[in-house]
């Protein structure tokens, strides 16, 4: 079965060039991509992940609000008992990459990460998610 990836822009940031490129590249790599669009709330993202049986959730933030938004999402997933890996992309300073990883984000893709690296990384997360018991 093809991996199912839910992508969304949480918060108020409108920079969607990157996430759309990633969506198209993942689709071309055989994934089923559910792109929720702009200004999605955390409850909307969690609901979509459950409804669409997501293998990975990817969010993109270029406004600098990535720490708060990723934290909100991880808490909401934990509260719902949803065990889906989260990938975060955007303008993320080096110091924040470690913060995000420690808080439970499965993969972080700061600006400058190559297209193949993101696509392969997300697909690898999805493959791991699929073999979960």
């Amino acid at each position: 079965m093809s991996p199912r990836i839910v992508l969304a822009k949480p918060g108020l940031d409108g920079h969607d060039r990157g996430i759309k490129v990633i969506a198209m590249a993942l689709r071309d790599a055989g994934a089923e991509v559910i792109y929720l669009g702009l200004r999605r709330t955390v409850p909307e993202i969690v609901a979509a992940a459950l409804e669409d049986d997501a293998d990975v959730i990817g969010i993109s933030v270029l406004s600098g609000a990535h720490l708060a938004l990723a934290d909100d999402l991880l808490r909401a997933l934990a509260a719902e008992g949803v065990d889906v890996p989260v990938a975060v992309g955007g303008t993320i300073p080096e110091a924040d990459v470690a913060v995000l990883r420690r808080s439970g984000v499965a993969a972080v893709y700061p600006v400058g990460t190559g297209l193949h690296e993101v696509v392969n990384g997300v697909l690898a997360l999805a493959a791991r998610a699929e073999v979960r018991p």
Partner: protein
Amino acid sequence: MSEVREPATDAGIPVREVYTEHDLASGLAERLGEPGRPPFTRGPYPTMYRGRMWTMRQFAGFGSPEEANERFHFLLQRGQTALSVAFDLPTQLGYDSDHPAARAEVGRVGVAIDTADDMVDLFDGLPLDQVSVNFTINATAPIILAMYLVAAERQGVAEESLAGTLQNDILKEFLARKTFVFPPEPSMRLSCDVIEFASGRLPRFNPISITGYHAREAGCDAIQELALTLASAIAYSDALVARGLDFDSFAPRLSFHFATTMDLFEEVAKLRAARRMWARIAADRFGAGDVNSGRLRFFSGNSGTTLTAQQPLNNIVRSTIQCLGAVLGGAQSIHVMGYDEAYEIPSEEAVTLSLRTQQIVALESGVPRTVDPLGGSYYVEALTDEIEARAGEVLDEIEALGGAVAALEQGVSQRWVAASAYRIEREIADGTRPRVGVNVHVDPNEDAAAMPELFSLDPSIAERQVARMAERVAARDGSACAAASAAVEAAARGGDNVMPPLIDAVRAGATLGELSDVFRVVFGEFREPHPW
């Protein structure tokens, strides 16, 4: 080995080994004209930078009005010649700083503005009759303009002496920048209310900056950028003419905003073609009688998406080339990106370097010494003609779809932009589009820890801004404010221009979020259709 690619410009125009007079169609003299005369190919003004240097306008703003005010003073002390205000996302989207959706975003990508008092504080010590101000604001542009007028009033500055630009181009928000709030039709109405109001009362102020920049940054090429911009200009002009306005009453105050990216000659050719195309549209389509109606003036923002996170100092070189392109293309004002833009909003060091880049091009390179120095270059003239022809074809396609608004509603323009962005990313990934430090001349020992010192935002800003707003809301006359807001609602529901009641409402202390809610109730909110 690998296939040999025909050399071509960034937008895919094939490029010959050498250009001669045979590459130019006859009638060049008519296509060029004199500088400052239609069709303005060589520049909007006869003397260009000999008469007046371009305006150096670095986009800035963060935190509360005090922090942003401090950055403005910092830039002016270093020789910047005008201001350009960046607003935070809650302000751009019509939320007060205490709104739950604003929590993580207050003061982050720009300054937080909740009340007219905030606007007064933002320009503290900056005489508004002497410094021109650019506002990057769109969905909430009418409210921000009202607050600015009240700030000028408090300074005792007459409306007629206010100079500057309100971005107020909502169409490109639906297309690329994405800070829309209301649906397209009422959004267009608000933009046009602003233009109509300003055309009568603010003779030195540009009430709109029609923008291709964001579509370009979102991924389209130079030809699409040009066509999409002109399609928007036609859409606004049609809407204003449909209100019964004379084209010449507003067209001289329309201003434009283009990107200037890395392909130097293509960018210069695009900017020259833009002037020629608009001059012809103004004359042929709208029957302009005033020569100023077809005189395209533009601001050039350099491209952030061409800058790389890898080897960030390389970005200084990229920005210098882009600044040069804007100057050779005849820009009226310029912003140069910070070299640390891939990480954060620029540090003081980075923004100073951006300004110094402009100053070095202006004062040391000799480029501004003569008008349109590339005019007559076989290559640049051939490219200018070719871009005009190709952008004309794209413009025809948009017209066939029913114009800029219809193309957006059908999602066609958005798909062009996204498809082009994906093509560019694949070319970077497969190495056919060179990016020094990224896919060629990569430094295997690049040390992330050696990155430049980054800007960091004071985490207490949101709290302080919320407290400041609460104080001001508590101090206002609640019933006067409610009455003034009701007048805004009446104008929004009827057909009257919203600007006069908005000015009264912000003067009475109504907040940006409250007034945006009035519009939300009347107009509804727009939700973007699925991109595929």
